[in-house]
């Protein structure tokens, strides 16, 4: 393994690693525009020039592989390098518009940051340009993205993303020299379902998000690291929020899951999670809102009987969008309080396709972030499915129903399962539904209890690969809505007289203890990839007659 020294610090890296990768691992910040860890290096911006002992010329750190014994000096320690970087900055400013006060990128602009940097920033510039090359400004490329080509520094990150990652190659440069300009053919709206990433990866304010533009200056935002709950991929992301409102979601890099990207639907999933149709108070079927103690009492009345067991035969359904911790308590409730029960998570046909891809990049057909979690927890012990339960109910074999439900955050507003759920609720006179939203197809519930949505509770999801990931709490649930674990703990207490802990780490410790697949995992060190990945990517069969793939 080659050993390299950067600014006096040493590190061993794998053969083929570049200088910038070594420096990043050492925490030595090398300025860059064009380098991106998940894009093919192009070495065009020349910001990452570094000095290497024994080399006549400066080299670009982003495209120069490390060789054993290499000694590198960055602009932080080498005057020659700092001067070169200043030179590059000066060149970039020749044709850069003086837009900063009105630029959306302000606060997140690499050009601005580098310009101010104490080691290689530009404090005096001799360049006084009278005529800048004019280019086009404010071109709307579809609903997501606005292009201001005058602000572009031609780093080609977006071009490489569009051509190599999303594959549609919708962005390209035209012309040559300082007339080079970024375009989408005929200013067409981008069709890329991943277009939102363009605004994230643009180092300056040339490609910005229309969703976020001018909403809030970035320095007012708080950041919370989490994962997306839009589908079974579980892309890592960061929730930017302020005043209990999510303002935007941006991808967080995880090479094992989502590289540096998220899809546009996932990016906007917070809008649905925080939608106006949230349930905020326990609700009786007649439309009467009640306080929590009354709500829990109603639940008890609905599900209890006078016979020896004390509870009715129960059909217990939980959406695979619930966290592992909620599912654990849900399972405890069902198995401990209801001797006659059927427990299932298979609410929709999409679950068949837990591993199946919707496209070549990230999106999956299964819109539940935790299908694998439900599976590992043994939520589908018996063969069967929603259709079977519906048939039974139609046949008059009606039982009590508990449903923990989260509507999908991406895709069709009306999930395929909606009609079946509505019918089931219609047929069951004793139904308790824990839900985040007030949904037309859940109207038939005898009792609806409001629970926290994604980003309003802490917990874990197990993605399609079997990777257990941490989903964080960024905002408070609306009104009287509470975390599902808290509601389930109340119900457990009501039916069993025992109140479990709702602390996620305690619940996760129990999961670790009881679920074979999670043995050895540590809540403090998620996301972790499970040693055995089941099922292999592709379609999933479980139960004999179970869910055969599409």
């Amino acid at each position, binding site marked *: 393994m080659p050993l390299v020294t950067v600014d006096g610090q040493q590190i061993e890296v794998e053969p083929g690693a570049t200088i910038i990768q070594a420096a990043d691992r050492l925490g030595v910040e090398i300025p860059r525009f064009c380098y991106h860890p998940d894009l093919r290096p192009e070495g065009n911006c020349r910001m990452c020039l570094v000095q290497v002992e024994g080399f006549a010329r400066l080299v670009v750190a982003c495209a120069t592989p490390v060789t054993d014994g290499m000694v590198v000096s960055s602009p932080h320690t080498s005057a020659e390098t700092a001067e070169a970087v200043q030179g590059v900055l000066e060149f970039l400013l020749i044709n850069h518009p003086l837009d900063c006060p009105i630029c959306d990128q302000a606060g997140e602009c690499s050009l601005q940051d580098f310009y101010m940097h104490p080691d290689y920033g530009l404090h005096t510039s001799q360049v006084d340009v009278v005529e800048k090359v004019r280019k086009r400004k404010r071109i709307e490329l579809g609903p997501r993205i606005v292009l201001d080509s005058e602000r572009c520094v031609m780093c080609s990150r977006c071009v490489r993303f*569009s*051509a190599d990652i999303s594959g549609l*190659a*919708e962005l*390209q440069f035209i*012309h*040559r020299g300082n007339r080079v300009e970024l*375009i*989408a*053919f005929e200013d067409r709206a981008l069709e890329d379902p991943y277009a939102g990433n363009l605004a994230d990866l643009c180092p300056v304010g040339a490609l910005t998000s229309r969703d976020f533009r001018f909403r809030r200056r970035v320095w007012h935002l708080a950041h919370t690291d989490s994962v997306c709950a839009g589908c079974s991929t579980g892309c890592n992301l960061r929730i930017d929020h302020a005043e209990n409102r999510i303002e935007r979601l941006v991808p967080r890099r995880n090479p094992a899951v989502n590289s540096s990207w998220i899809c546009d639907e996932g990016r906007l999933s917070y809008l649905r999670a925080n939608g106006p149709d949230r349930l905020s108070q326990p609700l009786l079927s007649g439309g009467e809102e009640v306080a929590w103690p009354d709500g829990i009492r109603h639940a008890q009345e609905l599900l209890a009987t006078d016979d020896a067991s004390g509870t009715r035969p129960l059909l217990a359904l939980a959406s695979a969008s619930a966290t592992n911790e909620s599912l654990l308590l849900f399972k405890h409730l069902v198995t401990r309080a209801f001797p006659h029960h059927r427990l299932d998570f298979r609410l929709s046909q999409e679950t068949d396709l837990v591993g199946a891809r919707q496209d070549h990049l990230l999106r999956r057909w299964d819109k539940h972030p935790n299908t694998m979690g439900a599976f590992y927890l043994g939520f589908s012990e018996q063969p069967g499915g929603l259709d079977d339960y519906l048939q039974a109910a139609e046949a008059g074999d009606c039982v009590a129903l508990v449903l923990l439900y989260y509507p999908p955050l991406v895709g069709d507003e009306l999930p395929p399962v909606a009609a079946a759920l509505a019918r089931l609720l219609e047929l069951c006179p004793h139904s308790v539904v824990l839900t985040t939203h007030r949904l037309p197809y859940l109207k038939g519930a005898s009792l609806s209890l409001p629970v926290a949505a994604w980003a309003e509770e802490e917990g874990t999801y197990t993605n399609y690969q079997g990777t257990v990931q941490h989903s964080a709490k960024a905002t408070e649930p609306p009104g009287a809505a509470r975390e599902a674990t808290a509601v389930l703990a109340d119900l457990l207490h009501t039916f069993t007289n025992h109140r479990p802990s709702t602390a996620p780490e305690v619940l996760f410790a129990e999961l670790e203890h009881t679920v074979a697949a999670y043995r050895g995992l540590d809540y403090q060190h998620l996301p972790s990839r499970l040693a055995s990945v089941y099922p292999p990517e592709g379609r999933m069969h479980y139960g004999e007659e179970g869910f055969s793939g599409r």
Partner: protein
Amino acid sequence: MRRLSDRALAEIETARREEDSARHALLTALRVVQEERRQVGPDEVVQIAALLSLSPATVEGVARFYDQISEEATGRQVLSLCRGISCQLCGADPLAREVLDNLGIEDGGRTQDGSLTVRLVECIGNCDQAPTGMLDTAFVGPLTSTVLSELLTRWRR
């Protein structure tokens, strides 16, 4: 959309078979289309993109890289006058000015009847004939006022 001729399509197809990558045929396709249509504008870009299974932006990016591929249609003939350093040293500048003024156009412009485009170009690799130029693909030079006006009179006819 005006469709490309069968001859052009056949030429592009031949180039396409040359290597495993269809993309490789793009440069030839641009040349073939430029010759046939005297331009590679949006219509042409879309057709080439479809033929080679490339995105229109990709084709546009490559087309707009080259000086000999033009977005706007050129005249039936193109007179390229070299403004390279060797030609400049031999008096190319006033000569070019004279031609453009006589025709009443600017660099890259087309005559009123649309038949001739005049372009000032960088060194064309014919510097021993300076000041030199090209009428379409034929080198002409050394150019003088007389030679040029002779050339233009012949072209007018």
